[in-house]
């Protein structure tokens, strides 16, 4: 039974509450819900987390921004081609600190998703992000990026306008900025499309978010030639927040309520905001040079490999 089936059961129980007026029965059902959640939703498989990260009701980037920075002003366009709606960017105040906020935005309905292109950005989206980040660097504003994308859009127009070039340019520039950059992966973090906003001083991840090199479906279809094996692929790929924390790819996990962020949105927003401000208060004490050095040091150490030691070669027979 996957997480969606469990969720349906919880929803059924909640529906019973609204039908029942009797207070005694309500208390009983509420207890049962808590017990059920505790028992079934505490430990989730990797595939469950994939399903939660893609959940229809999962809060989108705009929900986070509206809660954290109510005065958010959105800025449009890359000044070169057009405005990409799958990436939103602008300026907002979080706890009295002005941030440049850039995020990948999924839609809530089909129409909105078509407009947002299912949060799969085109090159102009990345160039808009870069423009806003350069602006932030100019005005010494910290940058906050929220990642939620299945990946960069693979299409004719995107290739013609240099998708690879746009992402590469973002990676290069982001590694050189000297303002604090904080990244939160709030849903799906798919491949280079996610990394193009994720070269940061602090990378945080919601508990049920995922971050991977390609989708589990894509992985299964390449390795086993069968995209139905995606649940198995999700286990193998190590894409959950806990795995990535162990690999020190991310710095911090932000806990979600039981059953996913959509069960208690306000608490998720509040926790995320607290985590962001906590990390920012650590970063703001550092000088620009320190920030640059620490970030580049961190990037330099990514990787998992070994080098043969040539120092003791004298004993080797030839």
């Amino acid at each position: 039974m996957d997480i969606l089936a469990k969720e349906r059961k919880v929803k059924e129980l909640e529906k019973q509450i609204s039908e029942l007026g009797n207070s005694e029965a309500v208390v009983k059902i509420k207890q049962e819900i808590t017990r059920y959640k505790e028992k079934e939703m505490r430990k989730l498989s990797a595939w469950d987390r994939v399903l939660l990260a893609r959940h229809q009701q999962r809060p989108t980037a705009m929900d986070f921004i509206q809660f954290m920075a109510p005065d958010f002003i959105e800025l449009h366009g890359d000044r070169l081609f057009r405005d990409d709606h799958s990436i939103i960017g602008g300026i907002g105040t979080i706890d009295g600190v002005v941030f440049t906020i850039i995020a990948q935005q999924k839609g809530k309905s089909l129409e909105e998703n078509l407009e947002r292109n299912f949060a799969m950005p085109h090159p102009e989206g990345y160039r808009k992000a870069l423009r806003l980040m350069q602006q932030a660097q100019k005005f010494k504003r910290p940058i906050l990026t929220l990642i939620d994308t299945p990946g960069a859009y693979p299409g004719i127009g995107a290739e013609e306008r240099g998708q690879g070039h746009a992402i590469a340019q973002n990676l290069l520039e982001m590694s050189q900025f000297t303002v604090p950059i904080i990244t939160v992966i709030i849903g799906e973090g798919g491949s280079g499309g996610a990394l193009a906003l994720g070269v940061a001083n602090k990378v945080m991840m919601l508990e049920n978010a995922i971050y991977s090199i390609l989708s589990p479906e894509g992985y299964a279809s390449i390795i086993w030639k069968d995209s139905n094996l995606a649940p198995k692929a999700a286990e193998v790929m190590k894409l959950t927040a806990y795995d990535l924390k162990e690999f020190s790819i991310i710095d911090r996990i932000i806990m979600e309520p039981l059953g996913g962020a959509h069960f208690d949105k306000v608490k998720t927003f509040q926790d995320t905001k607290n985590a962001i401000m906590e990390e920012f208060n650590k970063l703001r004490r550092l000088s620009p040079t320190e920030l640059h050095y620490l970030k580049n040091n961190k990037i330099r150490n990514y990787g998992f490999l070994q080098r043969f030691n040539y120092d003791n070669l004298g004993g080797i027979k030839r």
Partner: protein
Amino acid sequence: MTSIAKTLHKRKKIKNNLKIIQEQSSFAKAQKMDVPEGLYEKCPSCNRTVNMKSNIANDYICKHCGNHFRMRAIDRIRYIVDEDTFVEKGLGYITLNPLFQDGYEEKISHYKKTTNLDDAYIYGFGQINGQQCVVGVMDSYFLMGSMGSVVGEKVTKSFEYAVYKKLPIIIFTASGGARMQEGIFSLMQMAKTSAAVAKHSKMGLLYISVLTHPTTGGVTASFATLGDIILAEPGALIGFAGPRVIEQTIKQKLPDGFQTAEFMEEKGFVDKVVHRKDLKKTLAQLLLMHRRVA
């Protein structure tokens, strides 16, 4: 033993070790490997069979239609770098299996045997028509030239070596993208290599990237497209997403010539498409133009 004798002894030992290292280098090992006389290959462009040996002598260019074949890294170095000037650097890297994937280690050891390389990238110091530079070459015969931790590390190292020696760097890319068997570690190599390019660029040094068939995925989206000057070989496939993925997404057939080097030149993402026969001359000329005047 006196201190002088000690030093001499130490120096001798180091020299000895260096000799072993040179013998163990991929370049030395692969040079011993030869292609047998009677081996034929089909040209993917004109469908005629070509003798492999004479094809290699012809710089892997089809004598019938002028199609550029994929080139082994070792042949590329032999062709581009002046004779006896190449010194391979960054030896002894060992690819690990961070996600404990089934069959990955076997795959790696198989490719190690067939290509004689540590991983899909080798770099070193060399001269091109007398101009000193760092040359890095990806080998698409090694697991489609995919970028894992070792490739990312070696690319980064080659930039750092170029910074240390204050030399220009030339990288020949040929890759299917990031290596998915290493999962998130491969993805992070994109950030690592891009940051290395930035470090090199900040020193005011020249970086020429030459895109060869095929350059796609994570490599296109990192160091391949960050060159000061970007050259490409005719007919090379260059793009971010592979053609099959795009066709599946948009449910249409792609137009002819989509994502080729000429297409990218027309769209403005490649400085110049250079025929393989002119490549060495062009590179030498560019290096000469960027020579540091003391």
